C-alpha cells in the first residue's frame, strides 16, 4: 500500500500574547491508502491543530514548519487557492458537532450540493441529483423529501450523516474526521462509526480519525498514533496499542480507562498537569508526569521503530536510544 499522507517533522506554533505556543512539535507519521488511522490524545494535545494544518485552515497567527506530502504533493507552501481546490475535493473534513457544522439558514441538500459545485463545473440539477445519491448513501431516509429540510429539523445522528455526505461528495482520497462521534449519544455513535467503516470498504477512502475516545479507536481503527502535548509519542497497530502499550503515557492513558471491576466513583488519573505549551518542558513533554523520568528525558526522544509497525519515542526504548541522541539534542529542546 502506498502512503496517502506523509508528515515529516511538522511543527505548528501560534503567536500569542503569552509568546510562541508550540502546539505541535516535530510530528512525523504516514497514513497508508485505504486505512483508518486513529490519532488519540487528550484535549489540547494538538490533534485538531494538526488536521487544520493539513487543510490550510489555521488562523493567520499560526505558522507551520516541516513537510506535509499528500499523494506525493508537498502541501506546505501551496497557495491559498491551490489549497482551496484540494479542500472538499481531495481532502475533506468531518467536524465534531453536527449541531453547529451545518449552516442553519441552508437546506441540508444545498449544503451537500455546494461541496460539489465548489469543485466541479456542473449544472445545479446534476449537483442536486448527486447530492440526493449521497444522502441516500449515508442512510438518510427519504432523501428526496429531506433535501429541502433545514438542519434543525434533523436529529444529531442524521445531521452527522449529512456532514459525512458533504465530506464524501467528491470522493476524496482522505477524510479527516475530527471527533466525529463525540457530540453524539452512544447508540448513534456506533451507527456513525459503522457508516464510516462501511464507506471505507466501498469507496476505499483513507480516513484519519481524531479522537480522545479509546473506545472509538478500538472499534474502527487499523493503526493509531498517540499524541501528548503536541508530540507524537507512539504509533502502532490498534491491537498492539491495547495489548502491549510501550510508551509510559500510553500505558497511563490505558490504565485510566474505567473497568467494571473498579469501585464506582473512583477513576484513576495521571498525576500532574499537562504542561503549558507556551513554555513546554525541554525534551520529552511527558517527563513532568512520567513515573520513569530520568536524565535523558531532557532531550527530545526521537520516534523510532521498535518493530516494523510499532514506533515509540521514549528513552526507555532501545529503539529510541539507537535512533540516536546527538543530532536530535541539537534540534530538540535541550536547554
Amino acid at each position, binding site marked *: 500500500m502506498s502512503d496517502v499522507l506523509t508528515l515529516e517533522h511538522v511543527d505548528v506554533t501560534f503567536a500569542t500574547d503569552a509568546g510562541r505556543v508550540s502546539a505541535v512539535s516535530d510530528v512525523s507519521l504516514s497514513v497508508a491508502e485505504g486505512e483508518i488511522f486513529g490519532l488519540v490524545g487528550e484535549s489540547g494535545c494538538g490533534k485538531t491543530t494538526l488536521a487544520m494544518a493539513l*487543510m490550510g*485552515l489555521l488562523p*493567520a497567527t499560526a505558522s507551520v514548519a516541516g513537510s506535509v506530502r499528500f499523494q506525493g504533493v508537498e502541501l506546505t507552501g501551496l497557495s491559498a487557492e491551490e489549497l*482551496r*481546490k*484540494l*479542500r*472538499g*475535493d481531495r481532502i*475533506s*473534513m468531518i*467536524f*465534531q*458537532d453536527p*449541531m*453547529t*457544522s*451545518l*449552516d*442553519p*439558514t*441552508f437546506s441540508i441538500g444545498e449544503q451537500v450540493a*455546494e*461541496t460539489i459545485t*465548489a*469543485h466541479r463545473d456542473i449544472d445545479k440539477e446534476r449537483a442536486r441529483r448527486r447530492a440526493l445519491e449521497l444522502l441516500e448513501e449515508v442512510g438518510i431516509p427519504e432523501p428526496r423529501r429531506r433535501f429541502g429540510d*433545514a*438542519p*434543525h429539523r434533523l436529529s444529531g445522528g442524521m445531521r452527522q450523516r449529512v*456532514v459525512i455526505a*458533504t465530506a464524501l*461528495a467528491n470522493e476524496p482520497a482522505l477524510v479527516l474526521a475530527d471527533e466525529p462521534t463525540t457530540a453524539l449519544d452512544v447508540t448513534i455513535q456506533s451507527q456513525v462509526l459503522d457508516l464510516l467503516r462501511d464507506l471505507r470498504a466501498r469507496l476505499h477512502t483513507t480516513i484519519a480519525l481524531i479522537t480522545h475516545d479509546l473506545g472509538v479507536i478500538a472499534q474502527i481503527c487499523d493503526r493509531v498514533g498517540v499524541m501528548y502535548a503536541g508530540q507524537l509519542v507512539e504509533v502502532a497497530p490498534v491491537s498492539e496499542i491495547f495489548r502491549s502499550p510501550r510508551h509510559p503515557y500510553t500505558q497511563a492513558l490505558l490504565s485510566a480507562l474505567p473497568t467494571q471491576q473498579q469501585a464506582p466513583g473512583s477513576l484513576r488519573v495521571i498525576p500532574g498537569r499537562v504542561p503549558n505549551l507556551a513554555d513546554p518542558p525541554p525534551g520529552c513533554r511527558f517527563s513532568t508526569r512520567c513515573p520513569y523520568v530520568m536524565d535523558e528525558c531532557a532531550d527530545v526522544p526521537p520516534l523510532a521503530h521498535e518493530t516494523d509497525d510499532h514506533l515509540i519515542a521514549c528513552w526507555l526504548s532501545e529503539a529510541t536510544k539507537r535512533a540516536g541522541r546527538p543530532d536530535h539534542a541539537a534540534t530538540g529542546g535541550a536547554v
Partner: protein
Amino acid sequence: MSVAVATSGGVPRTVWRRGILASRKGRWGFGILTALALVAIFAPLLAPHDPNAIDPSRILSPPDLAHPFGSDALGRDVLSRVIFAYRVSLGVAVGSTLLAFLVGVPLGLYAGYHGGWVDTAIMRPIDMVLALPAMLLAVALIAIIGPGSNISALAIAVIYMPILARVVRSSTLVVVSQTYIEAARARGTRSRAIIARHVLPNAIGPAIVQATILMGFALQIEAALSFLGLGAQPPTSSLGVMLADGRDVLTQAPWVEVFPGLAIAITVLAFNFFGDGLRARLDPKGVTE
C-alpha cells in the same frame, strides 16, 4: 438550543407569520407603516385639495368637514399638504436608510470576515465619521453641496452608513467564528461564496432591525433639516418645512403645527414598533444594543 441557532439569523418566510406579526407591537407597526406607505404612494389620489392652492378666504381657518386639518397662513389645505409633505419625508427617510444599508452592510461584512488590516482599513475611517455629531455632519455636508431633499437624504445616509457597518461587522464576527463557516471553508467553498451565502444571511438580521428603527429617526432628522431650511426647498414641502411654517402661527392656529407633528410622531412610533417586532424574531440574543 437548536431552535435558537436556527432562528438567530436569516429572514425565512415564516418569520413574518410567526414572528413579527405574532407580537402586538409588530402587528401595529406593520399595520400603521403599510397604511402610511399607501398614503405616500397614492398621495395625489388621496389629497382632497391641491396642496399649493392658495385661498385667501380661508387663511388660518380651523378644521371643518371640507378641510379636516384646517388651513394655513396662506389658506392652503393642511391635510393635503401633510399628505404630500409626508410623501417627501418618507421618501427621504426610506431612501437614505436604504442607501446607507447598501453601502454599510457590504463594508461591515467585508471588514468582519477578513479581519486584520482589511478590518482596520475599512473601520477606522468609518469610526471617524461616527465620532462626528450627526447633525453637525449633515449641516456641514449641506453647507458644502447645497440644500434640497435629495441632499438631505444623502447626508442622512452618510450619518447612518457607519452605524449599519458597525452592526453588521459585529454580527459578522460572531458568525465567522461558527463551525459552519469553518466547515464551508473545509468544503473548499470560495471566500466570496462563503460571504454571500453563509455569512450574509446569518449576520444580516440585526442590521435589518437597526435599519428599520433608523428609518424612523431619519424622518426626524429630515424634519429637523427642513425646519432649519436645509432640507426640502419650496415649492416642495416636507413635514419639517410645515413645522417651520406652523411655528409662526402656533398660538392662533395650532392645527397648522400639530398635524405634521403628529404625522412625524406616529411614523417614528410605527417604525420603532415594527423594529421591535423584528428584533424579537431576528435577534433573540439582543446583539443590537
